[in-house]
């Protein structure tokens, strides 16, 4: 039962997948001898060489477009976009081709490809290196979008993404890379894409989150238990598209209250979709309006102000108290 951080867990999954399946190739900027700017591809180039660990020219559309061609040819490319904001350079390849080849060829061609994208703030990065834009891709039909919340889910979700027959965008909340360690099982574990997890059972309110803010929700729940005697239920979505409506709805039917937490901007964010699904399937169970604790509808501020932007336990605690006092 190795106790490892999330960067190591992702690295472990890449190595395991490459060992098991020689169709798996890793590609991107600086993923070779440099082993990635976050060292996530550590040891892979030394072990698998130039052919399977490909340092590409600095061109995101080029990376995604050629990965699409490689996937169509029968490989399983795992392409790294060095920071999620650089994905915009490749948006047309993702939306117009990766997401659509299966559909427009009625299943004859498909793009089993993973895009790994370090995402979110919290590491005092320079401008354009801290965005959370998963909602854009959740809005693009034909893609799957997942985001782990720690070492164990990172490894299990990456295996699922690599094995998936369709293109998966795999966001790595980069604030978590080395934030904490967690036991991961010896044997390879796979979390099904499209399924959320109840990380803590409760009864008074449902906290729904994913990625880095799951940690904030867990911290908030501790404060609420200690100070208010409350037992919140916490859901880690893990999969943003498709979204696990059943797990969300079942929990809200039980607790009657919810707060949705994510780092991306509020308007048309994932929280909007979560609340719409609750409205469609469980509105009669609600005791109070649902609150959203999210990034604001501004760009994430340059690092001196980013702490004020990113959802934290205090904001969640305040939101829960407000919902309960409705």
């Amino acid at each position: 039962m190795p106790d490892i951080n999330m960067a190591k867990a992702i690295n472990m999954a890449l190595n395991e997948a490459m060992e098991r399946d020689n169709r798996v190739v890793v590609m991107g900027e600086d993923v070779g001898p440099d082993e990635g700017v976050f060292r996530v591809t550590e040891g892979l180039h030394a072990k698998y060489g130039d052919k399977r660990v490909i340092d590409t020219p600095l061109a995101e559309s080029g990376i995604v477009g050629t990965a699409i061609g490689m996937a169509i040819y029968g490989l399983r490319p795992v392409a790294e976009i060095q920071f999620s904001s650089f994905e915009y350079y490749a948006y047309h390849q993702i939306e117009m081709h990766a997401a659509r080849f299966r559909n427009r060829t009625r299943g004859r061609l498909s793009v089993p490809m993973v895009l790994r994208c370090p995402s979110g703030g919290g590491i005092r990065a320079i401008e354009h290196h801290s965005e959370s834009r998963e909602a854009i891709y959740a809005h693009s039909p034909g893609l799957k979008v997942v985001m782990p919340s720690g070492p164990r889910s990172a490894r299990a979700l990456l295996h699922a993404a690599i094995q998936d027959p369709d293109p998966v965008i795999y966001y790595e909340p980069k604030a978590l890379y080395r934030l904490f360690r967690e036991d991961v099982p010896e044997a390879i574990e796979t979390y099904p894409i499209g399924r959320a997890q109840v990380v803590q059972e409760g009864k008074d309110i449902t906290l729904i989150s994913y990625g880095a803010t799951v940690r904030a929700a867990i911290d908030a729940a501790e404060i609420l238990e200690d100070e208010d005697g409350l037992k919140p239920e916490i859901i880690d979505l893990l999969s943003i598209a498709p979204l696990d409506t059943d797990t969300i709805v079942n929990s809200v039917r039980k607790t009657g209250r919810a707060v949705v937490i994510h780092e991306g901007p509020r308007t048309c964010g994932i929280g909007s979709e979560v609340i719409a699904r609750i409205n469609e399937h469980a509105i009669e169970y609600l005791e109070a309006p649902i609150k959203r604790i999210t990034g604001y509808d501004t760009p994430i501020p340059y690092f001196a102000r980013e702490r004020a932007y990113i959802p934290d336990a205090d904001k969640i605690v305040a939101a829960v108290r407000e919902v309960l006092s409705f």
Partner: protein
Amino acid sequence: MPRTPIDIPHKLEYLSILSENGEVDTKLEPKIEATKLKEMYRWMLFARRVDERLLKLQRQGRIGTFPQASGHEAISLGSVVNLEKADWHVPAYRELAGFLYRGWTLEQILIYWMGYEEGAVPPEGTNDLPISVPIASQLLHAAGIGMANNLKGDKNVVMTYFGDGASSEGDCHEAMNFAAVYQAPVVFICLNNQYAISVPLTKQMRNQTIAQRALSYGMDGIRVDGNDVLAVYAASKEAVEKARNGGGPTLIECLTYRYTPHTTADDPTRYRSTEECNTWMAKEPLIRFEKYLKTKKVMTDADFKTMEEEIDARINEAITNAEEACKKPPLSDPLKMFDYLYAELPSNLVEQKEELAKHLGIEITEKETRDEAGAVGRGK
């Protein structure tokens, strides 16, 4: 010595073998068997007649907006005939002759322009990609296919197509750079028809040729007469052989003219003169190829007539077949919009499909099922 010339080890050539009058440069003339020459002409003529008929069908409202390909047959066919079956054809959208040659049925092509994704399904057993509408984006797929080919140690070649307008897109640059860096076996065929909708070549770029860009990527480039099927054939044959033997990518710029509007929705009289178009009409590719075939006694007047009749009958038959197919499932079934987006239909799409089925009052023929764990699968 602060300033010295840098010797760039590439030469740029222009290749023309068959003049617009049908005179051939015998020193450059490729050796092509008579049966193959006849076959090549047949595919070019077939594409031309199909294109002309598609225009009529569009004017009658029987197909949607489509980009005509008349005048581009020498480029598409002259290059594609150099591919083996296992090679890859990665087209843009004016390679009608190439599609037909590679085994796409005319029915399928019609079905595509009638508005169905089913027309974009590559025929079984081919390594073809469908039409690519987003300009230049397909060039990267070609580069990636070539990279994967090298990685697996295969000996296939990828042929991909783009226009002069596409040469301004970033993807064009990225694709050529990737292909060159990894020595991917890609033949980039540029259909330089001098217009991107209304924007002429002079506003597209300042450089003299598109071919010269190859030099900056460290690959070979050549400009050929794109109305000369023999020149296109010879240049692409050389490029395919080189790519197959590990020599990397080549850029072939084929100079032609866009004889037609950009699409059926375009009106070229707004931006160019009839005189200009007429000048180029004299250079179009079929007439000079006909002259060549007659001079070489590959085909007689009677042969041309028979070929026209056969093609006409085949087009009529295909139109009937395609229009009949549209009336039946799967084409007539709007619920098919849901079925192919993912390998397995996720629950939100199951829900939305049921919603539309209920609204339209139709039955779902393919039932989605949930396994014990709740995952959605597709059952009958």
